[in-house]
């Protein structure tokens, strides 16, 4: 998967037509084979842009930053990124008219060891759900595979509550409370976050397993029905915690109980907790 040339062309065109102020894409780090997000403001720097299967980070995270606020933005999105974008649009965090979205028919990205990311293997929306133009012309339009529950979620489900608690305590013990997960999450845009230290009165920021437990659990519940499974959080975690377990678990519960809801797939779909149906089950509520 290499769309470097197409993206450079598109970005140059957008700058030349005066349609955008900033183009958000990827560039090489300059010293290894990894890529860093690039916020290009100077048309002459378009040649720095690249796109390969190393273009991992979900760029919609940058929509909440000073550099992009109230600017006209050109942006590269993969399938999962576009779901996040869709949700941000629905939640009125960005204006559609300020965006020019360049869609990528994604074939999956790879981790630092060159292996295809787990969420890409299981991905059911590789093609963007919202875009202005696709890099290769038209979307492939292939049918999305049916939703399936991951094996690791099945493993968690098989545990009884005591085991499950013990397992997560073990996981959260390694948390260093840097909050990289929250900061890298495109769906987390609250100016004052309830798990973020300093402003928070709930979590005073002491790094204990119990505070990590509570903070991450609260955080994952705030993202229930909104997580798009881009796994920015998991890739950001310096302790490599399997944070997707929390989110995928929520996703599965919501999919099964709330009319097969998946976050950000349909434009204007505000999320599981905004839709009410008499058929909604209540047996999972304590």
């Amino acid at each position, binding site marked *: 998967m290499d769309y470097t040339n197409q993206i450079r062309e598109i970005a140059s065109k957008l700058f030349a037509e005066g349609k955008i102020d900033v183009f958000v894409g990827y560039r090489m780090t300059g010293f290894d084979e990894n890529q860093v997000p690039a916020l290009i403001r100077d048309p002459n720097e378009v040649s720095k842009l690249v796109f390969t299967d190393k273009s991992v980070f979900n760029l919609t995270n940058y929509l909440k930053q000073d550099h992009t606020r109230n600017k006209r933005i050109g942006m590269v999105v993969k399938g999962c990124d576009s779901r996040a974008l869709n949700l941000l649009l629905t939640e009125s965090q960005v204006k559609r008219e300020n965006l020019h979205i360049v869609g990528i028919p994604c074939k999956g990205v790879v981790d630092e060891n060159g292996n295809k990311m787990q969420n890409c293997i299981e991905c059911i929306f590789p093609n963007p759900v919202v875009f202005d133009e696709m890099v290769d012309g038209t979307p492939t339009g292939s049918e999305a595979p049916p939703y399936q529950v991951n094996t690791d979620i099945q493993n968690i489900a098989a545990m009884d509550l005591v085991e499950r608690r013990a397992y997560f305590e073990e996981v959260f013990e390694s948390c260093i409370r*840097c909050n990289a997960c929250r900061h*890298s999450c495109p769906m987390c845009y609250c100016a004052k976050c309830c798990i973020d230290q300093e402003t928070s009165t709930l979590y005073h920021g*002491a790094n204990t397993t119990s505070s990590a437990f509570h903070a991450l659990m609260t955080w994952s519940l705030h993202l229930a029905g909104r997580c798009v499974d881009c796994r920015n959080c998991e890739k950001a975690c310096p302790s490599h915690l399997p944070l997707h377990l929390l989110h995928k678990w929520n996703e599965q519960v919501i999919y099964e109980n709330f009319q097969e809801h998946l976050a950000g797939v349909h434009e204007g779909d505000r999320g599981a907790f905004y839709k009410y149906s008499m058929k909604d089950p209540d047996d999972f509520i304590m």
Partner: protein
Amino acid sequence: MSVELFVTDKAGLTKFYEAIISKNETYAPVEKFGKYDFKRVSSFDACNPDAPIAQTMSAKPLFFPRSAKIMKYTADHSGTSVKETDEDSLAGKRVILGMKHCDARALQVLDKVYNWDYIDTDYQRRRENTVIISARCDKAETHCFCTSLDYDVEHSDAMDVAIVNGTDGKVFIEARTEKGKVFLKEMNIEQRISNNEFQVTDETAPAAVKQQYEAFAASFRLKMDYTEVNARLSKIFDSPEFENVSANCISCNTCAFVCPTCHCFKISDEKVKDTGVRYKSYDSCNNGYFTLMAGGHNPRPVKYRRWRQRALHKFVYYKERFGENLCVGCGKCTNSCPVNISIFEVVKQVSETVSV
């Protein structure tokens, strides 16, 4: 400081490690989710002293815990009482295995701030009670640039005992400090020599160690001249370049939390009913709230200013104040950065915008 140098092989080293672990409170890199963190170990199989830098957390928390209880208190109608905590990690003698050069060096840098003016006694006690056994790197990793900074990687006495891999499966064991020599004695070095597990080295050994070091130094791709960087950075407080290089930073705190030299902390209280604990936990200047004052005034309200503080604190301010760079070139921040920002690249890029 004269150096004691012994030679052994892989098997001898393993036996040596096993003996250390069985006789001492030992901390070493333990793997979890593909990442190594320094933890208490009771058997050699559980740890990996040769864990790669990129996958290993700093050992800093053993000296400056991620969250330390600084006091406990009870406050009810009868009055208030405060007591110091019974923090266990303050306790006795301990040994750290597999600490890398850079990580050990970071402690020497931190000593400067902890020992000026008010002396942090907890930190000092932990320092004094700890024997550091380093595993020296054979080859630079992707983000390493320790040889570019102001310390003598070859002759560093940041660790008490240095382990150096030689050629032909040889392993050199070097006592770098008095503490290290005493420790080797305690670990029955003489008996090991008479068992033939260890051999006393001849005069060719220092040359072999040096050769090993030279091969290591040659493996670095990232190189800079820190004096030049110091000089240039000290002139560019107002450079607009900081805004460009910080544009893709997402203001998480990861770089500071994994950094072996970052030492900013915050103090917070946790109180349930009548009893409470006061914690001292990591904090980061990348955090927007770091300098936000109660009245709403914030001297560093925007990201590039915070980034500038971080870069300049590392390469200018700390140098001015304490005579050292607050960076040891371990590359942990770059390895952990969610968006792959490299401090090396940023510092280089910014400093190249001015002439000396």
